[in-house]
């Protein structure tokens, strides 16, 4: 089935480019969304089975695959609205890139081998570059160049990490460098090599997870790419980075000395991510950049949760699930606001509540969700992280984390309240605003509704699958 999925994906992407017809591309995109959902259902039915030797439908893969299916559907909806007035060539390249990107992300989620995962992560860079460069502006070129260059350096670094890890295996052949086979070997391997492996992998994949220290590529990409693409990158692409790091973390955790060290590194990285995010959010005057820094803040929380361990593992998964829905919804909504103001500059926006109440309420809901204020489900995941930090006596992480989150909340509230209720500080664009149909906000309401629902009720299947995903971490 997986092979058929990849073949169909390639055929669809190539057909979109060569047929070069708007309606055909639109129908192909909708067909691909249907295929992605059907494949997701197939993966659920074949839970824990292995396909094509290198791919497993395990718990973490299923979680992120389901998120991908949901966010691909909403992103496709907003993309087709965005592309209405687009040139035919750009329309087709956008659709083809989105199809290839989704398939590459699927491959990265499902791969059970370090090298195969790495190949798919590498493939995502190419597809995303096309989407970031979509508007063909000087800023788009700058963001694309930086993204491609830094991701390439990051990917090379990650590969060096894989090579270090494979050096602990004595001539066994790459086909055996699966996460499972490596887990048995690292227990007795040289800890120094394993630590170097983790550092290289963390730095390399932090380009995709948008985590400190390689977060800058994601910030620039999100601020320049079309809003719905920003939402896609900030959710499902971030999940690619997280899962790639998480899988290596599980492998290396089999070595007790390395596990403790990795925990410290993750917590440090998390706090530094929060520090950078808080600092830049306080001075940010660009609505999309602010959301991009909010992603840095949230992946910082996830890194801390993973580092602290215990209940933190569950919190990390819950937080990344909820963050995916919230951030995608926020990007869609901020993208809609641009149709009124023709700008993302904070000073050139305001009074959104008067102009478009349906969108403004959605934005307000998104603000509540992302700042983890009840009834946001993210309140639960952050609360669990705090609990894990306090119960393990990690006050040195807990105190700066709480302080920095306060600054982040302040920055987000001031800026979004300005957008919603204040008069614009600078003259707004003279171009006639494009009216948005309130129906177009439904997807945002649905995504935020999931986040709020999960604050009160976490269905047993969700708890089970998260628990199964974290059960493989050595205690």
């Amino acid at each position, binding site marked *: 089935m997986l092979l058929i999925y990849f073949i169909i994906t390639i055929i669809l992407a190539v057909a979109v480019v060569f047929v070069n017809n708007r309606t055909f591309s639109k129908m192909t995109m909708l067909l691909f969304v249907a295929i992605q959902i059907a494949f997701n259902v197939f993966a659920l039915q074949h839970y824990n089975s292995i396909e094509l030797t290198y791919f497993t439908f395990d718990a973490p893969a299923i979680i992120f695959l389901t998120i991908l299916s949901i966010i691909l559907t909403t992103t496709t909806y907003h993309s087709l609205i965005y592309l209405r007035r687009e040139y035919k060539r750009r329309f087709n390249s956008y659709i083809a890139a989105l199809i290839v990107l989704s398939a590459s992300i699927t491959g990265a989620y499902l791969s059970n081998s370090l090298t195969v995962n790495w190949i798919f992560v590498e493939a995502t860079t*190419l597809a995303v570059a096309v989407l970031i460069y979509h508007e063909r502006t000087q800023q788009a070129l700058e*963001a694309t160049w930086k993204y491609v*260059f830094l991701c*390439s350096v990051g990917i090379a670094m990650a590969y060096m990490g894989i*090579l270090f890890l*494979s050096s602990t295996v004595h001539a066994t052949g790459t086909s055996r460098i699966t996460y499972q086979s490596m887990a048995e070997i690292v227990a007795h391997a040289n800890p120094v090599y394993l630590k170097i492996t983790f550092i290289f992998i963390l730095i390399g994949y932090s380009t995709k997870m948008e985590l400190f220290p390689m977060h800058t590529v994601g910030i620039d990409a999100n601020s320049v790419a079309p809003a719905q693409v920003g939402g896609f990158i900030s959710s499902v692409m971030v999940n690619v980075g997280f899962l790639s790091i998480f899988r290596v973390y599980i492998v290396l955790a089999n070595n007790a000395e390395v596990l403790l060290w990795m925990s410290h590194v993750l917590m440090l990285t998390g706090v530094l991510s929060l520090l950078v995010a808080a600092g830049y959010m306080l001075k940010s005057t660009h609505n999309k950049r602010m959301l991009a820094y909010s992603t840095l803040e949230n992946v910082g929380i996830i890194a801390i949760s993973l580092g602290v361990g215990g209940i933190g593992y569950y919190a990390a998964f819950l937080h990344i699930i909820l963050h995916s829905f919230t951030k995608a919804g926020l990007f869609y909504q901020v993208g809609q606001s641009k149709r009124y103001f023709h700008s993302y500059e904070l000073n050139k926006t305001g009074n959104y509540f008067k102009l478009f109440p349906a969108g403004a309420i959605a934005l307000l809901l998104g603000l509540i969700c992302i700042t983890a204020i009840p009834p946001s489900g993210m309140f639960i995941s952050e609360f669990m992280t705090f609990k894990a930090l306090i119960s393990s006596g990690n006050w040195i992480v807990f105190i700066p984390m709480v302080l920095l989150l306060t600054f982040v909340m302040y920055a987000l509230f001031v800026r979004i309240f300005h957008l919603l209720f204040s008069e614009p500080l600078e003259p707004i664009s003279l171009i006639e605003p494009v009216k948005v149909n309130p129906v177009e906000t439904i997807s945002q309401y649905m995504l935020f509704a999931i986040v709020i629902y999960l604050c009160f009720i976490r269905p047993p299947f969700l708890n089970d699958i998260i628990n199964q995903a974290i059960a493989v971490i050595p205690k």
Partner: protein
Amino acid sequence: MTLLIIIFAVTLIYFSITERFKTYAILIGLQGLMLFGIAIFKLTSTDLPNLIFIVSETLLFKGIIVPFLLFKIIRENKIHKVHNKAIPGFYSLISISFGLLISVILAKSLNNKNVDFLYFTISLFSLYTGLFLIIGHKKIFSHLIGFLIIENAVFLLSVAIGSEMPMLINTAILLDIFVSVLILGVFLNKIGDKINDFESEKLTKLKD
């Protein structure tokens, strides 16, 4: 073969003192040819199809195509010398020599029976040199050269570790071809049209 890897290290040192981009392109080509020689001598245990793939990649891609594209970029965009704000040659030489020392110490301290010490050392040194060029130079072309050196470092490390794991080396080659084509493609088609003097300072519109 030891001579080849030592000459490879010398080319890395030469990167620190040269200021002409043509020399950079020549050195990258030379490194490609040396990696071709290293692949032939070092990977004798690899099966024939894999060996042909690896050898053709180093000779054709690294030794011929990449330098050809670099010369094309230099010619079409009329860029000749590194930025005058780049770290002067003398200090670069000291820094690069320091990098070599660090690489030797690090490789020694990480001694592992599965890893070839000499290749490991030069791989670390290449990584250091590549990063040095990216950080220490202002021109984007230097950054591109820095990245190509990092790719060579990855190739050397894969040879040092995976001489009996051809799949690892093939994957490293995949990185080479895929990313080089992508980056050089962006460079050739887009950057040159919009940014005349290739200075990274011109790429600072995106900031807070």
